[in-house]
């Protein structure tokens, strides 16, 4: 059978092949879902390795500026910072989205209050060696939090507890689990998944999943 015998329709994203009979079990497609995403009520997990368990007495979060200057918080110090409750949609590159998730954490604006920097890029680090790059402007102005509660409960280890970054406007791999620091960089550098072929920026609304998207 030749390809030309199948209907092909045009999209802004390119041409698509129609699969006859597909679509009967469709999940709700809604305007608040980015392209290629589907809605889930579970909370799936994407991690490259085992889940690290970090004792709170050892937990520390450090911002390192481009001159090596450090700003650190222990767990009790972190808990003393003003916290916010955030309700937001999250979008994972493995295609699931979850709407209206609720988090509690510290906005990055608070953490960066006393950080002097001229660098535009950051590398976010997590316990276990995970890294991901995020431009500084995507972390500031109420766009990102270090969250330690999900749905009113302490954040579970498999979802990044004790604390994870939450940058909901980017694919969720940018929201580093088990976060323990942010390093300021003069130039953008790839983190863990970015090295493995994922997009440097990761905007779900522009479907920036892989390099070149």
């Amino acid at each position, binding site marked *: *059978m030749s*390809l030309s015998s*199948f*209907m092909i*329709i045009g*999209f802004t994203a*390119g041409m*698509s*092949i*129609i*699969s*006859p*009979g*597909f*679509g009967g*079990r*469709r*999940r709700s*497609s809604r305007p608040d879902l980015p392209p*290629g995403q*589907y809605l889930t009520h*579970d*909370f*799936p*997990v*994407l*991690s*490259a*390795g*085992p*889940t*690290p368990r970090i004792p709170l007495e050892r937990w520390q979060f450090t911002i390192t500026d481009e001159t090596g200057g450090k700003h650190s918080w222990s767990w009790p110090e972190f808990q003393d910072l003003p916290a916010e409750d955030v309700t937001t949609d999250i979008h994972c590159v*493995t*295609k*699931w989205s979850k709407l209206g998730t609720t988090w509690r954490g510290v906005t990055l604006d608070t953490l960066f209050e006393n950080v002097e920097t001229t660098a535009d890029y950051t590398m976010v680090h997590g316990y*276990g*060696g995970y890294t991901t790059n995020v431009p500084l402007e995507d972390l500031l102005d109420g766009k990102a939090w270090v969250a330690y509660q999900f749905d009113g409960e302490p954040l579970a280890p*498999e979802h990044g507890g004790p604390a994870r970054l939450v940058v909901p406007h980017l694919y969720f791999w940018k929201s580093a689990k088990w976060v323990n620091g942010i390093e300021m960089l003069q130039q953008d550098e*790839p983190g*863990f*998944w970015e*090295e*493995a*072929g994922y997009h440097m920026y990761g905007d779900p609304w522009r479907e920036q*999943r*892989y*390099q*070149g*998207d």
Partner: protein
Amino acid sequence: MARTAVPGRLSWRVATVEAARRETPSARTLVLRVPQWPGHLPGQHVDVRLTAPDGYSAQRSYSIASAWRDDGLVELTVQRVEDGEVSSYLIDDLEVGRPLELRGPVGGWFVWRAAPPPVLLVAGGSGVVPLMAMIRARGDVRGRQPFRLIYSVRTPQDALYAAELARRVRDDPGLDVHFVYTRKTPDGWPEPPGRLTVATLNTHGWPPDFAPDVFVCGPTAFVEAAADILVALGHDPGKVRTERFGGIS
């Protein structure tokens, strides 16, 4: 970590279903001919996109089951998820000869690069798919790395690639396979059905001193449990690579 060579843009390609095989009552392998396929490494996956006549579309990831043989063929094995939107279509409706859109290969971490260390593969259900690609790639190059697969399935009927695994255990030197049955065992099996335990991984895996490369793949809850046990047994977390397929967590 070494920088991986990253291909350029991953564009959508129109593959053709060249053949299809039932693997088990609930799983089907699609043999796809993909034009200009750049080749892939064992462990990588593709993204598949289905589009309905009214323009609605859905994407899912599927691991590549076959080792690359420079013949333009890519095999996927799809396990039915109850009432699953895409898996049901790929198993019940997609006919041989039809086109299927996909892009890839994706992933540069959950990949076996024919490195010298011994390898421990731990699979739950359809999580065996990318691990089978590794076993096949090793077979193709007559690899001598000691390989062990620990494969957890519900019942003997659910085991994917059972006949091929049996043949390879006989013919591929240094490969062994241990099954774990969670619901029903074959007749005469020495243990009652049950989940993967510390004892299973301790007895049938490699000791941590061998510093094996470990690949764990399957439903999220299975991967969480297996990876936790491996770390508790003393395996370096940096050497335990995981791929979580989804499911309730």
